[in-house]
């Protein structure tokens, strides 16, 4: 289906398929927290919900659907999704390891942790292990500088890390 050129070459989205009812309901819970004309404020939560429902990463179609649902320009959603390191635009492993390499963590030796992780997993930053278990990411300050170096995985922060502690954590994961 083609629309007037105002839509440019934008593909039209089938909302019911891309954002199923239960997902929309979850997003709605966030939308009501903001004044009606600031629907867009729910974009971070909406992207998180949609990403969690899609094995941890966002497709263009999903971002477009969020844009349409929140009534905002598509590019504005891409901006958010590319700005924050917690969103992924490529398929990821079961566990995302987000290692902070910002100032405090750097001072507290995140280099060492990075080296260890890369060696143990056999991947560079931004890559996923061949078995699809881990994705290693470099992220910005996690706001936990007091207990640097820090890693972020799912809903958890792992703090005051050492290579040994990392091994312990990874060994404990399925």
């Amino acid at each position, binding site marked *: *289906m*083609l*629309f*007037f*050129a*105002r*839509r*440019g*070459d*934008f593909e039209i989205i089938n909302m019911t398929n891309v954002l199923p009812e239960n997902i929309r309901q979850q997003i709605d819970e966030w939308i009501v927290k903001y004044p009606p004309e600031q629907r867009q404020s729910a974009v971070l939560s909406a992207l998180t919900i949609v990403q969690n429902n899609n094995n941890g990463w966002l497709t*263009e179609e999903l971002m477009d659907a969020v844009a349409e649902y929140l009534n905002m*320009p*598509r*590019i*504005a959603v*891409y*901006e958010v999704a*590319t*700005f924050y390191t917690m969103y992924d635009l490529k398929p990821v492993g079961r566990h995302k390891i987000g290692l902070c390499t910002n100032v405090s963590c750097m001072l507290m030796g995140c280099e060492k942790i990075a080296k260890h992780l890369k060696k143990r997993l056999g991947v560079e930053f931004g890559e996923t292990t061949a078995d699809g278990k881990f994705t290693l990411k470099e992220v*910005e300050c996690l706001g936990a500088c007091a207990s640097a170096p820090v890693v972020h995985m799912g809903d958890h922060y792992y703090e005051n890390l050492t290579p040994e502690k990392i091994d312990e954590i990874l060994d404990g994961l399925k």
Partner: protein
Amino acid sequence: MIEIEIDGKTFQAEPGSMIIEVADKVGIPIPRFCYHKKLSIAANCRMCLVEVEKAPKPMPACATPVTPGMKILTCSQKAREAQKSVMEFLLINHPLDCPICDQGGECELQDVSLGYGKGISRFTEGKRSVKDDDLGPLIATEMTRCIQCTRCVRFEQEVAGFRELGATGRGENMEITTFIKHSISHEMSGNIIDLCPVGALTSKPYRFSARAWELDQVEAVAPHDCIGSNIYVHKRVQEVMRVVPRENETLNETWLSDRDRYAYTAVNSPARLHKPMIKVNNVWQETDWATALEFVADGLQKVLTQYGPKQIGAFAAPSATTEEHYLLQKLMRTLGINSVDHRLHQTDVSDQKYAPLYPSLGIKIEELELQDTILLIGSNIQREQPIAGHRIRKATLRGAQVLSINAVDYPVNFNLAEKIITAPDHFNLNLAGIAKALSAQSKADLPTQILDLLKEIQPSAIEQKFAAQLSSGEKKLILLGAVAQNHPEAATLRALAQLIGTLSSAKVGCLTEGANSAGAWLAGAVPHRGPAGAALPESGLAMNTGLGASLRAYFLLGIEPEFDAANPAAAVASLNKAEFVVACSPFKTDGLLQYTHAILPIAAFTETSGTYVNAEGRWQSFNAAVAAPGEARPGWKVLRVLGNQLNLADFDYVTSEQVRDELRVLVDAAVFPLPNPHPKGDGIGKRAEGKGIMRITEWPIYSIDNMVRQSQPLQDSATNEPTAVYMNEKLAKDLQLQDGAMVKVIQGSAQAELPLMVDARIAAGCVWIPAGRPETATLGAAFGSVEIIM
């Protein structure tokens, strides 16, 4: 007003204004990249740092409001050091290869780095490079040069109201991009080229064709819509290199529509006609002016003596200059020919004798944004008059309520408070409903025969809502767009608009097509009036009637009826039958070669002097920027010499100014009775006989005149809707037709084969078909019933 001090001098300043605004006003230079007076303040480049007394750190002049007694130093040591450091940071990643950059010589970064940059860079690290986006045929990108000032993004967000570019990524990975593959489609997109302070966004057609210092600029007026945007034509010797906006706060501000910016690319089109051509014994030959003019004069004389003046029609483009319109009608009327017209697409002109001196906007263009309530009738305003659309967007951002009645739910970059999307033959009923709803509360004195017409009308809920909106607000405006003016019941719609205007104390205005409808009316290029509204002994035929009336001879000025006529099939049939057809045209086209007997090469808008009168009635004269190519000559000169050739008296003008001044005297002296506020409007509230599927026609933004049709970059732009038959899903289903299928459009004996596009925005039971395209040039009337078959 408060008092502040900049660099030791005292100035008065508006409280709350930023330091940079005050400095700009008094001419104290402060370097800047992200700041632009028409955009919101981002304060992200930090180039404008200045020292403010008592402030511990340098302050950004663009984001620091003035306070009473503030002392500002723009070139103290502290300020200079800060500015130089920022410059050094900005140049870390920016390429230092100005000689191979298109912006070189007119680059803000280049200029500022000359003043604030170091001769030698302290950075030895590699520079970042950024992949380029393909933004389409109008804008070239070199994103490695971007300094992330975000002017382009803010323009799209705030002015264009439609975001296609954004800043993705973060920190040093931030990029300005569309992110996905996407050609820019906004009709004012080219402005980001002017805004971009560096060579990241440049004009694709102009790219690498000239250096800024080789160019001369000539003031001119844009020739495509009734705004009369001010432009500069940039030329190198005798070649037009580009067109850029000339700031005029009361018209186009600092902006320009893409149509006005890029249409110049047609000037050097391979279709340009360089020599007069005549058809002798059915063979075309190039010739000199003397032979051609003699040929034309003889041809016209012959028809005149044989069949009389009623068998000749002279039809001009609404974008011809006032001087051309005036001379054309003077020439024809001296010969007794009254069928002179410029209303290309209009078919119902039955109320023309009630018309005012010229169709006007009713207010000034800059006042558009001050309106509280605006009713748009059949207007695709953003595409028809992009600058007017922009002003209306500004009005809505201030809180104005915009109502729209249209046959297509055109996407607009402003909020519509209410809309009615319906078949064109319903406009009349909807407007009557609104009038009726208003008449219940209005105290306006209405003639009883008008009230009688409304007696039977029962306003619907949505019509009541429109009426309620129109009753509130102080400044109210009703605007008739192209679909309303080209509508088969345009006279009734005009009468109803007037009626609603009276009932709601709203002004009524017209967004006329072409650049110079007002000028054409004033000059007398209408069949029932001479210059300045003078009475004619007898009325001639209007354009649509005349072009379909199989006259013996036609004189066409700047039009191509197969694309421009309201009924191309009928017009072309007439022209093919005619004994003598002359066209004055900058282009040699297949159509003209087929049905004319002589083509006189005339100048394009950059090559002639003249005057345009915009929709608010403002006369704007301009000079030729360059000479016309080959033997092409300005239209007014051709008409003048033709007048001489025909031995007509008073055709001895030396300059176009003389022509203009002759008309100006008449216009200034004209005592013109105000139009009857309520023309008869017999059709009010009556549903026109219409059966089956109704056609809606628009001359899309890049199909409206011969210039834009010849501009390849505009033709290739994503702003252009593909040629097709557009209808909503229900109609496609009812007709059992598939999206994308080739279908036949039949209008009596006229037909065309076009792809079908399902589009939810088209009113129920209607098809939208663009005119001005080769694929639809064989079709008939722009409105009315059509048949669609597989």
